[in-house]
């Protein structure tokens, strides 16, 4: 039973979001690892190999753009599905993200947590 649980990594430095993510995704039957520092994302991904990465853009250590750059330059991870969840909504930021072939991009304040779960589920 445990083996069928979808496994995702969430990179999110904000404590409140982190709590909501952990709470909701666990309740919805996901296996979740939460990382709060951008520079730890790629090493963790290499070790744990999740099905999907839910990525924040503004983080300490390394920002989301830097993580995406690093991901796409890491052969083992370059095809990993990534959903960007940020509060940056300017077109410039969206355009920057779109260079990296991400699966989905949403602005956190535009969606409900239920919708976040749906989006992640449909990406798996």
């Amino acid at each position, binding site marked *: 039973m445990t083996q069928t649980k979808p496994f995702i990594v969430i990179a999110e430095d*904000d404590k409140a979001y982190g709590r909501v993510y952990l709470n909701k995704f666990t309740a919805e039957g996901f296996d979740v690892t939460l990382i709060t520092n951008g520079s730890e994302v790629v090493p963790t991904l290499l070790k744990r190999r999740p099905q999907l990465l839910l990525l924040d853009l503004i983080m300490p250590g390394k920002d989301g753009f830097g993580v995406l750059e690093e991901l796409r330059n890491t052969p083992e991870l370059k095809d990993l599905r990534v959903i960007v969840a940020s509060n940056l*909504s*300017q077109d410039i930021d969206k355009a920057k993200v779109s260079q990296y072939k991400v699966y989905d991009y949403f602005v956190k*304040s535009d969606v409900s947590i*239920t919708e976040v779960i749906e989006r992640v589920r449909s990406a798996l």
Partner: protein
Amino acid sequence: MRRRMNKKSTSDNLASRSGQGTAYVIRAYSWLAIFSLGLFGVLHIIAHPQDAVGYLELAGATALLLNLAGLRFTRRVAVARNIFLLTVLAFLGLMLISGGTADTGLLWVFVFPVTAFFLAGKRAGMAWLVALLLLILGIWVLAATDLITIPYSGVVLRQLAISVSVVTVGIYVYQHTREQLASESQESRAQLRAEKVRSDVIVQHITEGIVTVDAEGKITFANPAAYKMLGWPAHELIGKNFIKAIPMLDENGREIASEYRPMHHALHEGESLTMNTTYRQKDGKPVPVSITGTPLVINGKIVGAIGTFRDISEEQDVVRAKSEFVTLASHQLRTPLSAVSWMSELLLNGDAGPLSAEQREHVKGIYRSNQRMAALVSEMLIVSGLDLHSLSVMPQKTELPLLAANVVKEVVGAHADHPKIKETYDPAVPAIQCDQEIMKIILRNLLSNAVKYTPKAGEVTVSIALSKTKKLNPHSKGSVVIAVSDTGYGIPKAATSKIFSKFFRAKNISHRDTDGTGLGLYIVKALLDYVDGQVTFHSEENKGTTFTVALPVEGMVAYQPAELTSLIPKGAEEDV
């Protein structure tokens, strides 16, 4: 001090130039006179060696030679002129007394008025002619009293005096007119010169760069600001082809093809064009500029173009700083807002255990207020994106009726007590190129206004039709017209001029719905302006309102804002 010195040296220069003119005439006339006196003197001496006239003529020629030498060494033009005229006068007297060759001596008298006026000017020339008349009179008196014998009768001398006077008056009038014309033209020349000095000073000191090119695009002039901005030394720039010598770069640093450049446009299309762009200086350094190319048209022919440009580095820094502030502010504002939203959602969903009915109502209140705040932040971001021109337009083929139907569903879902909504979509409406996000914001705002401000018993109609006659620009073949009409409270007459202003809310609705921000219609109008569309409305209070949106059938033009390099150091971003 330097300016004064310059002026003085200029006037000295002018005076010496006019002196040089007179000296030249004196020299020319003197050589003529020396030649004729010398020649006639020698001929006289050969024919009548006993006659004094020949020797006197040679003496006169010698006197004129000495005068010329004096002029050369002393450079006293006025003295040389007076000596010359006096000598000529003396010999005219001699001619009248001796009669010259075959008594034709009196003909030489007519040479004098021209010479005198030419050399001495109007006033002094007149004095010299009075002297000539007195000389004729004197000779006549001497002859009449038999003190001397001359070959001419009194009548001849009288007629000579009269005809010399007539010639003198004629020359005087001529000289007077000539001097007046000369002074007028000198005045207008001085005026022109002053005008030129003024415009030169303006062009040299203006901080805008100015470059002119000829019809082939070769630089004919560039002011110091242009040299500085383009990073070229003055002497190297003139004669170069402007477009070839100064590369223009797009936002990605790639060279812009010549046919898209304002100067090319001015030279080939005859229209002026302004562009914000980047020039590459001679040493390769980029400089952001705003340039306008304007054609120079003379008699309907394009003879060249003028380019004016200014450095916009500072303006760009301001835009960049604003844009970064908006990015950070939006992130900072939204982070707590959506955290509150998601946490209240968890509570409402029972993820943290069941809530009592009262607790549930309170959490709902938190959730709703929070959603309002989040919506306001989103609206402010759209407004700032419009202000900063940082909103991109990404058109894709869109079936507007489908898009509208989705927005209707969304709005209906958000308003429980909504009036009846009727949808009429003309099947002739083609799919057009439009940015779906922008279209959704426009329709969502118009529809939610219609729904909010129409009583439940009323009706809201959304219609989309094709109009071939409504053209938003001269090249358009028609428009897609979207109308959102309602039978609601309407817009009071006094408010009609302000409804598209930022934060404006009409009195008859502000008490009905306290949630509104007053940004909705401003955003609708500003977005439509941004994509070259149009919004109009017709309203009657307590009867209803119709908002009509028109988009050209050709659709929206794609626009991608240039990515601006960050002003905030990398480390600073990581702390947020």
